[in-house]
């Protein structure tokens, strides 16, 4: 191949690459799968330094003045926010050299007009009085690399003026500052986590006399003859019926660190009378454990409270307040339960005062109620309750869940009148 032909081919190749780049069709950036990340992908710094993501964007802006930000669009393109669009290729190159981009794919590069360099925004952000930003009511502060602004999330509108003043004091123009309403951020906990103070609906862990571990749900806190404790199922104790001094942990045993209580009441099952031959009977599957265990540790409690989650969710959003005992429970009543396995489920009472055979044991439960609602193993002990006032999350307690159908679309619970009778006059609120 002669030199002039080779030169021509190189020129053609360069031209094709340039056209491909400007049209957003650079093959080495095309991905087969579009990422579904609508915001900037957080990739690790190439050098492994302690720089934050914003530090690195500012570093790009130092290399390419007027670079205002970069993010991935919903259709998988890399969009560059630029004060001067002609510097976009340099900005992309600086991004690729600053970040470890080997796992970042984009289908095209696009440019949007910005007003400020990212380093300028960061300088203002760093200069703002931290005392203002740490105030209650300021939920988050962000250098928004898409909108090319300093963004502040506030939960209390009344503090906006003070926050604006703090930013103006360091020279931030009005069009570089944006506010949005934000909910305070809470740490996410689930019914299966270790949660303090303890309340109804949380996971409990215990061992039978053979040393086998089991999970159930803490039903509700109560005072029994003046002693603080909680109610769970009788079958969620060492043996069903009778006290074996079962120790309870929330959420999982870790030495004694998570120990919350000691079984102190679990009435014996009776035989004869109305109880079928060969079976043992009771009217409630309920046992009481005192809190804390006499040998400690101390336990914070939320007396009169049940953990609140969304339906079918385990994530704790807050608590319900128990107003009292719901006696009686009527057929057709709409009730809820909150348990460690299926969270909160809702359904109507479809049977009352049912005498029920129990699988796997020689126990027969008398006068139980059933609800058509979601349940699964681990939900034993769940509080069953009626929502009295949804606006303030107040509830009345119908009873304690203990069983489910094999599907499982129906749960069984012992009603509060029988729980109260067998465990002797509980105070629950």
């Amino acid at each position, binding site marked *: 191949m002669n030199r002039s032909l080779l030169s021509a081919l190189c020129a053609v190749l360069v031209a094709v690459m340039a056209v491909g780049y400007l049209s957003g069709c650079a093959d080495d950036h095309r991905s087969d799968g579009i990422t579904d990340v609508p915001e900037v992908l957080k990739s690790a710094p190439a050098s492994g330094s302690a720089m934050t993501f914003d530090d690195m964007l500012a570093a790009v802006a130092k290399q390419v003045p007027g670079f205002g930000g970069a993010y991935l669009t919903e259709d998988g393109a890399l969009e560059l926010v630029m004060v001067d669009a002609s510097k976009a290729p340099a900005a992309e190159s600086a991004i690729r050299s600053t970040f470890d981009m080997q796992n970042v794919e984009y289908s095209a590069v696009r440019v949007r007009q910005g007003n400020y360099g990212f380093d300028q925004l960061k300088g203002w952000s760093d200069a703002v009085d931290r005392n203002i930003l740490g105030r209650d009511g300021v939920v988050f502060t962000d250098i928004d690399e898409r909108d090319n602004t300093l963004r502040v999330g506030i939960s209390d509108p009344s503090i906006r003026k003070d926050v604006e003043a703090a930013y103006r004091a360091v020279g931030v123009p009005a069009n570089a500052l944006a506010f949005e309403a934000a909910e305070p951020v809470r740490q996410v906990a689930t019914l*299966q986590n270790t949660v303090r103070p303890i309340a109804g609906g949380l996971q409990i*862990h215990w061992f039978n006399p053979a*040393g*086998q*571990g*089991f*999970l*159930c749900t803490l039903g509700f806190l109560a005072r029994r003859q003046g002693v603080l404790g909680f109610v769970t*199922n009788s*079958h*969620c104790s060492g043996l069903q019926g009778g006290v074996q001094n079962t120790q309870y942990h929330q959420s*999982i*045993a*870790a030495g004694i660190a998570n120990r919350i209580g000691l079984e102190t009441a679990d009435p014996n099952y009776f035989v004869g009378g109305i109880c079928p031959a060969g079976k043992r009977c009771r009217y409630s*599957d309920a046992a009481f454990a005192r809190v804390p265990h006499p040998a400690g540790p101390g336990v914070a409690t939320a007396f009169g409270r049940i953990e609140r989650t969304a339906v079918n969710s385990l994530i704790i959003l807050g608590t319900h307040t128990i107003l009292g005992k719901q006696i009686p429970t009527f057929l057709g009543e709409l009730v809820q339960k909150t*348990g460690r*396995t299926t969270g909160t489920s809702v359904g109507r009472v479809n049977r009352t005062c049912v005498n*029920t*055979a*129990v*699988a*796997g*044991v020689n126990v027969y*439960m008398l006068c*139980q109620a059933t609800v058509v609602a979601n*349940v*699964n*193993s*681990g*939900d*034993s002990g769940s509080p069953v309750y009626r929502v009295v006032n949804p606006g303030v999350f107040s509830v009345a307690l119908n009873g304690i*869940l*203990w*069983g*489910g*159908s*094999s599907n*499982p679309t129906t*749960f*069984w619970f012992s009603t509060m009148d029988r729980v109260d009778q067998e465990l002797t006059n509980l105070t629950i609120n």
Partner: protein
Amino acid sequence: MQIQPGSRSGSSPLWQLNLTALFVIIIAMSNLTFEGCMVTDKKASTGPLGCTLSVPRNVKADGALTIRLTLVNESTSALDLGLQGNPPFRFSVAKESGESVWESTYGEAIQQILELRTLAPSDSLMFTSTWNLTDNQGRRVPSGSYMVHGWVELDPPFTARADPARLTIE
């Protein structure tokens, strides 16, 4: 109905991690299907568990049938299992057509307890039940060919299901 450990169970379970997450990780890493046992959730059919359903081929119509389901850890790592409900196992019998005849927990409420059990490598659990050859309504079933099914409900959503066994009632 009884549960018999095939050998001594493992030591105290290691419960620093959520059980469900640990089991999902184990299932995902094993990526093996063992003949005779399907460990399923609604999406996958993999698992390190072996399970065997033991049923006599024939039984007299006036007799009774002992059904055994054995769950074995066929991996080289200890398995932390959640056994769902009391009892955690189910047996059922169906006609060759698939029409259900008998279920071991039919008409009974199941205690919603979750048992935590660690199976060491090669360790096993055995579940046993006796069927008195009556249907769910208590009537003697006619002679003929039937399919016996057995499974163990594990920490939701997993189930360990053995291959069904054919039974002839004479």
